[in-house]
Every structure is written in C-alpha cells, then in structure tokens.
C-alpha cells in the first residue's frame, strides 16, 4: 500500500467550465511552433533554416550551453518561419506540416539519458532548484512525477492515461534507469497503472490545491538542500518517453483540456505540442467578447491570443472573461453574492463547495505592501515561511532566501497564495525573478 500524506493547507477553487470527459477531434492546423520561452532558463540556438524539411524528432533549436540537448519538431514538414523579436531574440520556430508525420527512428538500446537528450525529450525535464530546464551533466538526487494537477480547470490525467497505460509504465521504467523515481498521486485516482506503478515509489497526497504541485510533493518526501538537484517531469511527458522506448519514435501527442467558463463545450482534444490554438478554439468561443485565453492553466498559464501556440508543458487551454469593463460599483462594501472569496466578508462560504464560479481576470484591488499576516501560510503546504521568503526576494537578500528555502520552490507553488493575497502582490513573478537572479549569482 502506498504511503498517504495528508495535507491540510491549501484551497480548491471551483470554477465553471470543467472539461467533460470526452475527446473531440480538431482539424490539423496549417502551422506548428516550438517556442523557446516555454523552456524556462534556456538560451536557444537555431539549427534549421527556413525552407528546411524536418521529420518528427529532428532538432529545431538546441541549448547554447549544452548543444547536445535537442529541442525537436513535433511534426514532419518544412520550416516556414524562424521568428525573431527585439535584439534578435528567438521567439519561435514554425513548421508547416506535410501531413505524413514521418518520424526519425532512434535506437532505444543503450544509455537512456543520452537517448532522451538526442530525441528532444530531455527538454521536458525541469530541475529544482530554479525551476528551469535540466542540465544533462547533473546527477539528480531523484526524479519526481506528479500524476495529478489540483489546480482548477486542469486536465484529468487519469482520463489522458486511458489507452496509454503501457507507455506510461515504460516511461517510468526508463526514468528509473537515470535516478530513483517518485510518483505522486491523488486519493481519487484508482487506476492500477498509477496505484501499482512499478519501478517507482508511489505516494498519495490527500489535500486541496496545490497538493498536485510536484514542488509540494518534493518538500514532503525529500526536501532539496543546497547543492542538490532534483528533476521533475509532467505525467503526460512520461508517456512521451514511454512511446519513444516502445517504438523508437518521438510522438508528442497530448490530450489537452479545453476548459473555462467562456468555452462553449469544454472537452478534451488530442493534439500535438505546438498546435495552433485557433484549431482548438474554433467555434468554441465568442470572439466578439473580451476574453482571456490562457496557454496552460488558469492559475499558472500565460495570457495568449487565438494565434498563439500550445505551450510545450501546457496540458490545458483555459478561457475566462477578461473583465476589463466590469465597472463594479462600490465593491469594497457591496455584498457581491456571486463573487468567490475565501474571506468571510463575502458570502461564498454560505453557498457551499459545490457551487461553480465564473471568475474574470481582474485583480480586484490595488497593490499594497504585505499587510495581513498568515494569508500565504494557510494555502502553502510546505515547511517554508512563504511570506518571509517573498520579503527576502523583494529585498534581494540572497543569503536569507537560501536560508528560508528558495531552492525548494517554483513560481507555480505560489499560485494559490497569489490568488488569496489581499495585498495583490504578483508572487509568481516575484519568485521567478528571484530565482533568475539567484541562478545568475550562483553560476
């Protein structure tokens, strides 16, 4: 029987527009793109030219610091655009598909790490500390995989796992040849592929969001100390590894949840990494409204447009109202019955946990200094003083950040705290910037 860790701190946010457990087919877009910014901390170097033809698994760009790490094309076709922005920063490499999905064949015998580096799947590893792309020269203490996402409107991994059970286990087997693998699952997940997964240590995390965050799970199983490195990988990306191990081919097909209150029929779609979002959202949203399309989860994803491309790590696309013309009158004193809040001065505590809310993207207040105490701690299920850590980051005090445990956190771990913060501080951005500075200092 797997070990159960009960978490009390946290908050489940019940949003309207959860994806129904059915898969709709979407048409193939005219263009795919791989976006280097999806791989945090990467310095990309393009290795293709416009007009080159590529197969699935051929490198589009590599890591400048570790040129052996490939970032590969999800489709076969021709490179249509190498998009650059200010100061020639690489924004994306776009590929026009030829519809054949010809894939490069890899030799799966031999060293797993070398195979993953070569086939581009290594790019899906993230490392702690810093929450950036992993360094192939490191020897990680362990590899952590969280098989569930506790954030609102997120993908149900058990649904995505259907039909991919063999691949998932093959992926875990491969990862276990690099380092010890820990799999975190939710008590609601009953699939024997998860509860009885082999070649890994399964732990059940019972609690509200962010229990599904791999960072929270690391903190409870084997917290990171200074000098140690841990790798993490998304559960669906483990399936990518499994497919490669079983077939020798790269297949970056995901089951993405298209969800949110503004999606007409929230459901799942089987798409490739880098899919143009137009094909996912066509007919699903009312383009005349002011909407916020989020590449990824509503709590952690980035705002994008219909012309954006599905992020490398994104397991869902969420659409909510932007709310920039809401003009709510005297909100500071009005009862606001339909508004969700953890605070008892609103009435959502009366309406029960089953009520689904429509929330827009407004901040709903002005940014202040940290005033209330203990707000973050209530939703931060780690043995870390979140408020003090954030203050140390704002103050730029690196020694204190280290002492308070910055190596154990990622911006996403602060998502719920940022949601409840009455001072409206941008915690995820603060933590991201803090990690970037620290990484530069320690380099």
């Amino acid at each position: 029987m797997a070990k159960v860790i009960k978490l009390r701190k946290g908050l489940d946010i019940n949003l309207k527009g959860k994806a129904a457990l059915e898969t709709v087919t979407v048409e193939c877009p005219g263009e795919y793109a791989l976006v280097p910014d999806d791989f945090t901390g990467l310095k990309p170097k393009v290795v293709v030219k416009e007009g080159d033809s590529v197969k699935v698994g051929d490198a589009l760009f590599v890591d400048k610091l570790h040129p052996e790490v490939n970032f590969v094309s999800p489709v076969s076709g021709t490179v249509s655009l190498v998009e650059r922005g200010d100061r020639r920063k690489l924004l994306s490499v776009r590929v026009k598909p030829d519809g054949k999905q010809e894939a490069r064949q890899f030799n799966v015998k031999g060293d797993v790490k070398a195979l993953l580096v070569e086939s581009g799947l290594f790019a899906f590893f993230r490392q702690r500390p810093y929450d950036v792309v992993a360094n192939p020269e490191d020897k990680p203490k362990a590899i952590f995989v969280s098989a569930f996402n506790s954030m609102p409107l997120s993908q149900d991994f058990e649904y995505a796992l259907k039909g991919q059970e063999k691949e998932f286990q093959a992926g875990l087997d491969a990862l276990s040849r690099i380092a010890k693998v820990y799999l975190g699952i939710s008590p609601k997940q009953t699939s024997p592929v998860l509860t009885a997964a082999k070649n890994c240590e399964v732990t059940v995390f019972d609690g509200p969001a962010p229990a599904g965050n791999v960072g929270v799970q690391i903190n409870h199983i084997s917290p990171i100390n200074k000098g140690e490195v841990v790798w993490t990988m998304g559960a669906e990306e483990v399936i990518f590894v499994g497919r490669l191990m079983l077939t020798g081919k790269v297949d970056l097909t995901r089951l993405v949840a298209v969800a949110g209150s503004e999606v007409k029929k929230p459901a799942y779609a089987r798409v490739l990494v880098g899919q143009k979002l137009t094909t996912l959202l066509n007919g699903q949203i009312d383009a005349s409204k002011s909407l916020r399309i989020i590449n990824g989860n509503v709590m952690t994803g980035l705002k994008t447009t219909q012309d954006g491309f599905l992020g490398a790590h994104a397991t869902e696309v969420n659409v909510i109202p932007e709310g920039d013309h809401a003009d709510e009158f005297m909100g500071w004193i009005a009862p606001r019955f339909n508004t969700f809040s953890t605070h008892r001065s609103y009435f959502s505590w009366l309406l029960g946990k089953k009520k689904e809310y429509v929330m827009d993207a407004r901040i709903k207040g002005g940014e202040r200094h940290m005033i209330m105490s203990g707000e973050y701690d209530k939703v931060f299920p780690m043995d870390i003083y979140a408020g003090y850590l954030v203050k140390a980051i704002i103050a730029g005090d690196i020694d204190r950040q280290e002492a308070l445990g910055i190596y154990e956190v990622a911006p996403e771990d602060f998502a719920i705290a940022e949601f409840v913060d009455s001072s409206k501080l941008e915690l995820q951005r603060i933590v991201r910037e803090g990690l970037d500075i620290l990484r530069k200092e320690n380099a």
Partner: protein
Amino acid sequence: MKSLRKFFDNIKPYVEEGGKFHALRSLVDGFETFAFVPNQTSRVGSVNIHDAIDSKRIMSLVVIALMPALLFGMYNVGYQNYAAAGTLANASFWELFGFGFLAVLPKIIVSYVVGLGIEFVVAQWKGEEIQEGFLVSGILIPMIIPVNTPLWMLAIAVAFSVILAKEIFGGTGMNVFNPALVTRAFLFFSYPSVMTGDDNVWVAQSTIFGLGNNLPDTYAAATPLGNAALGQPLADQCAAITGLIPGAIGETSVIAIALGAILLLWTGVASWKTMISVFVGGGLTAALFHATGSSPLTWCDQIVLGGFCFGAVFMATDPVTSARTEGGKYIYGFLIGVVAVMVRVLNPGFPEGMMLAILLMNIFAPLIDYFFVQSNINKRAKRAIK
C-alpha cells in the same frame, strides 16, 4: 452609476502625467477606486484570477467593527455629562446621544482630515495609490482619547504619528508601531494634563449647541482604574461591563467591543490567537497580583476596566505591527496582557498600561518572529549537513 463612470473617464486625462491637474492624481484615483472596483486585469506571468478580497474591504470591516463601540461611546459622553450635572432623569436618549455625537464628531473630522490629507500628499509624491490603513487609524484615534482633548492637540498628534510613525517607514504595512497608539502616546507624554492629570478630562464640561450641561471647573471624575491606583476596589462591575463609566471615548463598553470582536474573528481579519492570548496573559497576571494583595482588583475587574478589551480586540491584533508567525502570535498577545497589568499595578504613575504594553510589544514582535523563523532556518541547515 454610468454617469459617474463617465465622469471619471472624462477627468482622467487631466490628472494623468502631464495633465493640467496632475497634482490631484492621487485624490481622483482614491475616489475612483472607492466608487468602482479597479478594472485592471492581471499581467502576463502572474496568476490569472484573483480572490475578491482587497485591503479596502478589510479596512472597511474593521471600521464597521468599531461602530458599536463608537456609537456607545457617543452615548456615554452624553450620559457622563448629564450624570455629573445631576440632570440624567430629565434627559431623553436622543439628548444624551446627540450631545455625545456633537462632542465626538469634530474629533473624527480632525483626525481624518489631517491624517488622510497627509496620506493623499504622500501618495501623490510617491506616485502610488492611496493606502487604506488610515481609514482604521483615523477612527481609532478619537476613540482612545479623553473627550476633552483640544482639537489642535489632536491635529498635531495625528500629523506626528502619520508622518513619523508610518510614512517614513514606507506607509501601511511597513510601520513598526501602531499609528493610533503613537498618536495617543504623543498626547500622553506631551500634554499629560489633558490626558490624565486632574481627573477632569474624562467628562465633557460644557454645553454644545444648547445640549448638555456646563459643569463647574472644579468638577472631577476619576476612572475606576484611577481609583484602583489609589487602592480602592471596583464599586460597580455591571457599569464597567455596559460601559457607563468615565473613560476614553470608545473604550468603556465591554459589550460594544465584544460585538466588534465577533465580527473581526468571524471574518478572520483579526487573529484569534493574538486576541485570546492577551486576555489569558492579562487575566493570569491580574489574578496573581490580586492573590498577593498588590492590587484591589480581581482578574475580572482588570479585564473589563480601562482600555484592556479595546486594546486586545482592535490594537493588539493589528496585523502589521503584531507578530506575523502563527506561533509568535500567542507569545506576543500573552506578553501584552502581562505587561499591561504589570504597568497598571506596579507603576503608580500610570493607572492605565494597555497603550504602553502594546507599543512595547510592537518593538518585540520582530524579535519573537525571529525565533520562529530562525528555528525553520536551523532545521533546513541541519538537514543540509546530514
């Protein structure tokens, strides 16, 4: 509502950077965010949805929680005046309340005008939004001073505390001391004669617009705590609980304060850990002093008298100046209670100790937190060595 929205949209260009009336930006901004929830949406890279709670609502809640104590305080100001003149039997409820209202209102206005005026100027100067912290301080200040405090003194004290206790530290959220208590401390040490002294400060002495009674100059009414300092036991515990005793405007009624406490605890604005600990600390210390014969007051008397309840509910729980770690809140609150009663009993110069106790613990709050945070740091360091 629509026309109001239009009005703000129309005047906005004038107050923005480079506009004709740029000097009024913070003022317009303050009123706009007062009227409408800001329409600003979250930036790329931060969480896309937010809880509806903001500091405006939290501060407003505290103000609402203070209302029972304030309204009762107004009534009590009238009650004390009429009782002193011996005309209580002839006066109606509205006469008592009306007199108190007229006596207290100027203090509230002065406190808000001076304090918020400074806040507006600072917000304009720093290019920030107006911080709501003073909404609470501004109403707390008139409630913790004697009714006879001259308005000019109040104005100076408010200006002193807003500038030197709050703004120079960086504004709401950065201050070390509770600004309302600094105001009171400033008055207390600069003008002791009107804050304690001859015992003629607690009851309004003259008529206002024909209401109330003129009392003789020699009239004096000591607070029960003042009497206790002279060794007299509490005469009427019932009056001390309902609040019909002389004292600072808002602090006398335990019942009115309890109503506010219920709202603050239910909404989680105030920490129950701090609040309960103050009572436990104060109660135990008072019981000890009573048992050893140092004080004629029982633990129960100590708690219901003076500013103990008011301080425990509204001042000690100020999240900015109190301990910020959950464990620290117990210690912080407990020591406030202990020190408050110790000052009352052991120091003959100060019949009331709550203000000094809270200000003292404001200094020590970061130290208390330090031990809790440091234990977390040590645990992490130890783990790394293993």
